């Protein structure tokens, strides 16, 4: 799968928080984050799953359907961090007449692993 960079700006975190009805201060309130001894406003870990799903759907096409995603948070990331999503196919098989691929995706911040997802995608659901 092609690599894709994604940097969540502070504006992005406000937009993501609003779009998911998650108004926790950690994601936009710099003073609150500093009081929690964090270096900046924190990216919601579930947003990493959204990045993985976006890239998987771009790669697999409009008729693909993600059946499962196992998402693991490995380290924290903050507004302004330069993140890169990457992934590769680990298996492909036919189930009940449908092709299903398994992909392993990682979200990196430099050499540091931020999150990982293993997903199963049905290629022609629609």
């Amino acid at each position: 799968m092609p690599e894709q960079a994604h940097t969540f700006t502070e504006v992005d975190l406000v937009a993501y928080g609003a779009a998911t009805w998650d108004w926790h201060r950690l994601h936009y309130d710099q003073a609150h984050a500093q009081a929690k001894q964090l270096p900046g406003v924190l990216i919601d870990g579930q947003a990493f799953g959204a990045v993985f799903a976006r890239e998987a759907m771009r790669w697999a096409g409009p008729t693909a359907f993600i059946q499962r995603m196992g998402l693991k948070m490995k380290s924290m990331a903050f507004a302004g961090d330069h993140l890169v999503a990457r992934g590769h196919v680990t298996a492909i098989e036919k189930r009940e007449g449908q092709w299903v691929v398994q992909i392993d995706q990682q979200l990196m911040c430099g050499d540091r692993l931020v999150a990982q997802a293993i997903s199963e995608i049905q290629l022609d659901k629609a």
Partner: protein
Amino acid sequence: MALLTPELQAMIGRQVHYPAREAFGHASIRYFALAMHDDNPLYVDEDYAKAAGYPGIIAPPTLVCETCQYAHRVPDADGYIGHEWHLPVPGCRMIRAGNDYAFTRPVLATDRISVTWTLESMVEKPSSRGGMQLFVMSVATYNDAQGHTVATNREALVFQPLVPHAQTQP
């Protein structure tokens, strides 16, 4: 001191149900796509979605598991309005360890999705930082108006003591 107290153990199996208050919504889907810089036309273009074989605009796959749209309460002191168990685990910080999502079909903009959270289990395990930590497993089940499950979200949270217990340090 054990983190997994009898008070916590008694909470295992607890369930909270959040009925659907409105349709998932075209605006919610478009808003999320914009926030994620996701230009996939499946989320904004009715004709494109139908041409791809769907009844109409669909939601990005993980949105149903990420949104707290089901909630309807005043935000707490941290600004949060989503589901919480309010577990009495003093002196700990909470960390999201992971989520296992399973989907049975795409969520449509017109779907009315209700959510049921279940507190499945709590397990105390040694921490690599020293001391013990508490793993809390919950599952959210997302049902459509016909009662069919469209997604489940099994969530693992970890409560880590801010100061590891002295006698359990390596």
